[in-house]
C-alpha cells in the first residue's frame, strides 16, 4: 500500500519561524490585519507630523459658510462657525497622537521603574503595591478629570493626569514579570555570582520583560487617546480653542442632528487610530504567546 507522506511540509514547519525577524516577515504575509492596521497607523502618524503643511489654519472662521455638508471644496464639511472640519481633523491627529505617545512613554518609564523596584526589592513591595491598589480603585476618568480640573489644563498636566491611572497596571505587570524572572536559573546564577543589582536588572530582567512591556505600552497608547478625547469632551481637557478631536466632538454634539459630520469625522479618525493601535497590540501579544497546540482529543468543531 502506498502511503503519501508530506515529510517536507513538517520539515519546513520545524525549520521556519525561528528568529523573530523571520516570524515577523511571515506574519505580514499571512496577517492582513497586521498590514492594514500598521498602514493606517503610519498614515495617521504622517498626518500628525505633517499637519502644519497638509492642512490650512484650523482656526479660520467663515460664519457665512457654516454647517455646510461635505463637498468637493470642503471634504469634511464645515462646523458651526464655518471652520473646515478637514483641517481641524488633521490638526486633531497631531494632538491626539501626541498625547497618546507622551502618555505611553511616561507610563512605561514610570511603570517600569515602580514595577522593578516593587518586584526586586521586597521591602518596598507592600507599600508600593498598596498605593497602586489605591490609584486603581479610583475610576480612571474621574481621577484624570479631577486632576486636570483642579490643577489646570496645560499639556503637561493632561499627560500626567492620563498617565497616573495607567501606571498601576504597567507597574503590576512589570512586577509580575520580575517576580517570575528573578526565579529563573540564569538570573539566580547572576545573583549568586555576585552581579551588581543594576546590571542584573538591565542585562537580565529588563530584556526578559521587554515583550509584555511593549504590548502593554501599545494598549496604554490607545486608551490614552480615548481618555484625552473624553477629557476634552467633558470640558476638562485641552483648552477649547485647540482643535483636538475631543473638543471638536464636544462642539459637534449640539449639531448632531443638523451636521453629524462635525462629530463624525473626528470620531472616525479617533476610532481608526485607536483600533489600529489595539490590533497591533493584539498581534504582538499573540506573537509573544506561542499558541498551544491542539490536543488529539476534542469535540469542538
Amino acid at each position, binding site marked *: 500500500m502506498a502511503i503519501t507522506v508530506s515529510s517536507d511540509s513538517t520539515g519546513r514547519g520545524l525549520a521556519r519561524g525561528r528568529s523573530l525577524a523571520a516570524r515577523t516577515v511571515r506574519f505580514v504575509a499571512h496577517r492582513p490585519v497586521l498590514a492594514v492596521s500598521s498602514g493606517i497607523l503610519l498614515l495617521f502618524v504622517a498626518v500628525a507630523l505633517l499637519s502644519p503643511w497638509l492642512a490650512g489654519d484650523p482656526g479660520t472662521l467663515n460664519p457665512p459658510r457654516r454647517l455646510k455638508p461635505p463637498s468637493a471644496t470642503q471634504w469634511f464639511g464645515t462646523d458651526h462657525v464655518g471652520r473646515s472640519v478637514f483641517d481641524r481633523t488633521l490638526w486633531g491627529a497631531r494632538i491626539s497622537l501626541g498625547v497618546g505617545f507622551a502618555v505611553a512613554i511616561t507610563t512605561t518609564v514610570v511603570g517600569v521603574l515602580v514595577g522593578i523596584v516593587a518586584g526586586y526589592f521586597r521591602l518596598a513591595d507592600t507599600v508600593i503595591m498598596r498605593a497602586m*491598589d489605591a490609584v486603581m*480603585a479610583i475610576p480612571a*476618568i474621574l481621577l484624570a478629570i479631577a486632576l486636570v480640573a483642579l490643577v489646570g489644563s496645560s499639556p503637561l498636566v493632561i499627560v500626567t493626569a492620563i498617565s497616573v491611572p495607567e501606571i498601576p497596571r504597567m507597574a503590576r505587570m512589570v512586577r509580575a514579570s520580575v517576580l517570575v524572572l528573578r526565579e529563573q536559573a540564569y538570573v539566580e546564577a547572576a545573583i549568586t555570582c555576585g552581579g551588581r543589582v543594576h546590571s542584573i536588572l538591565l542585562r537580565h530582567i529588563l530584556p526578559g520583560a521587554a515583550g509584555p512591556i511593549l504590548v502593554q505600552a501599545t494598549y496604554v497608547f490607545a486608551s490614552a487617546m480615548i481618555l484625552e478625547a473624553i477629557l476634552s469632551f467633558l470640558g476638562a481637557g485641552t483648552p477649547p480653542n485647540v482643535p483636538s478631536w475631543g473638543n471638536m466632538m464636544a462642539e459637534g*454634539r449640539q449639531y448632531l442632528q443638523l451636521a453629524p459630520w462635525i462629530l463624525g469625522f473626528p*470620531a472616525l479618525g479617533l476610532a481608526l487610530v485607536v483600533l489600529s493601535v489595539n490590533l497591533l497590540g493584539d498581534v504582538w501579544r499573540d506573537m509573544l504567546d506561542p499558541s498551544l497546540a491542539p490536543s488529539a482529543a476534542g469535540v469542538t468543531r
Partner: protein
Amino acid sequence: MIAYVLGRLLAAIPVLSAVAAFVFLLLSLVPGDPAVVIAGDLATPEQVEAIRRSLALDRPLVERFVTWLGHMLTGDFGNSLFSGIAVSELIVQRIEPTLVLALMTIVIAVTVAVPLGLVSAYHPTGIVARLTMAGAVLGFSLPVFVVAFGLVYVFALGLGWFPVQSYVPLSEGLAGTLHSLVLPAVAVSFLYIALIARVTRAAVLEVLREDYVRTAHAKGLAARLILTRHVLRNAAVPVITIIGIGFAALLGGVVVTETVFSIPGLGRLTADSILRRDYPVVQALILLFSTVYVAVNLAVDIAYVLVDPRIRY
C-alpha cells in the same frame, strides 16, 4: 470563611485610606491659593474668605486631614460650595438614576457577553466568534460618548425609538425608567461587554482543553449541557474577576454617559462638580465611587468560594 471576609474587609482599609489621602491631597495640588481658585474670578473677598473657612484652609495640613477623615467616617461630607446643600443630601437626591443605570448595564453586559464569549470559544472559527472578537476590539477603541452619540443618532434621532435625553424617575413607573435608560445602558455596556466577552472566550478555551470536558463528552452529554454545566462553571473565576475589575470602566462610563444623556445622576453630579470645583462634593463622590469599586471586588473574592469548591478560606 468569616475570618477571610473579615481579613479582606481589613485589607480594604489601607486601600481606602490611601484613596482618602489622595483625594484630600488633590486640593493641595491646586496652584496658588485654593480658596481663590475655587471661588472663581467673580468672587468677592468675603466669598473667598468663606470658602477658606469652610475648607479650614487656615489650619495645618495634617490637622485638616484628620478632621476631614473624621467627618467622612461619621457621614458628614460637608456642604456643596455651589448650592450650599449638604453633600449627603445631594447624593441621596441623585443616586437613583445611577443605581438603575449601573444595574441595567451589568445585566445587559453579562447576559450578552458571557454567551458570546462561550460561543466564540466553542466555535473558534465561526461567524459569531469573528464578529464578537471584531466587536470587542471596536469596544476598546471607541470612547463611550462616541458610542452614545452613535446610538442617539440612529435610535433616537433616526428611528425615534428612544428619547434623546430625559430621565423618567422610578416614581413614574419602572417601565418608563428602563425605557429612558436603554440607550445610556447600552452605551456604557459596550466596553464592559468587550472586556467580559474576551475574558470569557479565553477562559472557556482553556477549560475546553481540560480532561474533564473530554470525560463529559465521553459520557455522551449534550453539547449545551456540557457548556453550561461543566465548562462555564469552571471558567467562572476569571469571568467574575473581570466583571469586578471592569466595574471601574462602568463607573467611568456612567460619569460620561450621564453627561451625554443629561441624566440627573451621581455621574453627572461628579462631572459638573469637578468643573465647578465644588470641592467637598468631588471629594465625597470620588471616595464613594472608590468604596463601591472596592466593595464590588471584595464581593467578587467571596463569590469565588461559591463557584469553586476547591477554594477555601
